[in-house]
């Protein structure tokens, strides 16, 4: 059973969003996603300052058996990326909701309307057999 922390919001494409006190958000991929991908060997992150569009590819995660796009759950501007992932992509496998965070984004106003709560995402996972 995948971990789905109650305090986060989720995209159907298996990214999570954490609201930070300063109004920015932290973004990563879910426990379900990291488990489905297997051991990660490479993470390609966007440039700081890049404008992201909700639902558009913003990063790539590569495992020994697959490479997959990560879709931005919000529209906004990249404030920071997790540089530690360059040398230790396995942080995503180990702590996808913690040290495996991927980027911090300043969201554009009203861009997070489509996201799911933990219960809705859990139901979504159940529906796809996750």
């Amino acid at each position, binding site marked *: 059973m995948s971990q789905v922390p109650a305090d986060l919001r989720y995209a159907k494409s298996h990214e999570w969003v954490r609201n930070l006190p300063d109004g920015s958000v932290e973004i990563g991929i879910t426990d379900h996603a990291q488990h489905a991908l297997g051991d990660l*060997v*490479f993470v*390609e992150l966007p440039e700081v300052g890049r404008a992201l569009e909700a639902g558009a590819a913003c990063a790539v995660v*590569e495992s020994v*058996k*697959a*490479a997959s796009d990560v879709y931005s759950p919000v529209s906004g501007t990249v404030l920071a990326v997790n540089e530690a992932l360059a040398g230790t992509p396995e942080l995503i496998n180990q702590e996808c909701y913690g040290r495996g965070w991927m980027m911090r984004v300043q969201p554009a106003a009203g861009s997070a309307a489509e996201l799911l709560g933990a219960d809705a995402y859990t139901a979504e996972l159940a529906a796809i057999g996750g």
Partner: protein
Amino acid sequence: MPFVPHTDADVREMLATIGVSDIDALFDEIPPELRIAGLDGIPVALSEMQIGRLMSERAQRDGRPLSFLGAGAYEHHIPSAVWAITTRGEFYSAYTPYQAEASQGTLQVIYEYQSMITSLTGLEVSNASLYDGGSAVAEAALMAVRAHRKSKSLRLLVPATVNPNYRRVAVSTAGNQGLQFDTVPYVAGTGCIDREALARHGGADYAALVIQQPNFFGQLEDVDALTDWAHAQGMFVIAVVNPTSLAILKPPAEWGTKGADICVGEGQPLGVPLSSGGPYFGFMTTRMEHVRSMPGRIVGRTVDLDGRPGFTLTLQAREQHIRRGKATSNICTNQGLLMTAATIYMTLLGPQGLARVAEESRARTRALVELATAVPGVRAAFTGPRFHEAVLRFDAPVATVLERMAVGGVLGGVALADDYPELGEALLVCATETKTDEDLRRYVEALRGALR
């Protein structure tokens, strides 16, 4: 015996299963006006014996002309051992096998090839080879656009001193993917990139500058200054090089302060015979930081569970069978046989042998130019250092000169009028280590005769 995978009964059963009346019905979606009923002008099939006889008769008609052609394909001596070893059963396949790791010997050859090509170019990582020099330039252009994280530009600067065939292949391969190639003229006196014209592109958003060294005319570009200029503009540098020349010229990794970012070229000079334009092979190297944007297969060295060394395809997540539509390229194999020949050629010659080939070719061309320009009505088009090719200009029509020389069994060079009309009656000539003093004398005699 013909290879027939399915019997008529098999075919009927498969068609019945999917509810289709005949095989033609499977192609219904192709509009009738695009389909042809028959191939006009194609004669009936010949047997192997008949075709062998026909081709050997035609080959005799060609004779054994003395060739001074270059322009991207070069006649070098190939030690007999190269193809004797390459055509051994263990190597004799055009492809990387599908269960690649089951063929450790094949993978080791590719690994050795990659090691030699990285050593020649100075860059950190090589793929397992591409189709030819032209397609390698096209792939490098696509890769530069993909790998450039600071620029989203689809435009590249491609000087007129880059092989016109490579430029055409790049346009036909990458043009429909939105890439745009802007040309830069050359200086009339030196045949090298016009730096003032180039500087006018400063400040514009380009993904890369392509630099061919030696350039299409055989002239040596100021690669250090060009590379530094491009990097100062935020552009990548794509080096297009002749592998033989790298035995005596500075490797692209050392161009300017930071070195070229991607290096490609035609691998034919390394042990592949001239053969009506191919098959040849392309090579490509880059910095490790760009490896995930690189097209083609890559072989890595690893250890198995017991700690024994072995070879494996690596970084496959770039490739079609994993990344599908977002793969770095539609190329998912390599020119296995020709790459094998090149590896054996480089092994037999070694760095010193390759340097001797390069030095001797340079010296032969210099001697040829001295002899040819002593003939009235013939002069060198450009000044400045060159490798093993040169452009000659004539007062007389080049087409006639070449025709008359060919009657005497001498292929006098490649006419440039189609691609460089501004040069007038111009000829690109090349003499490699295969040309003796006697051969050079024959060239000049044929030239004098043709101009008479």
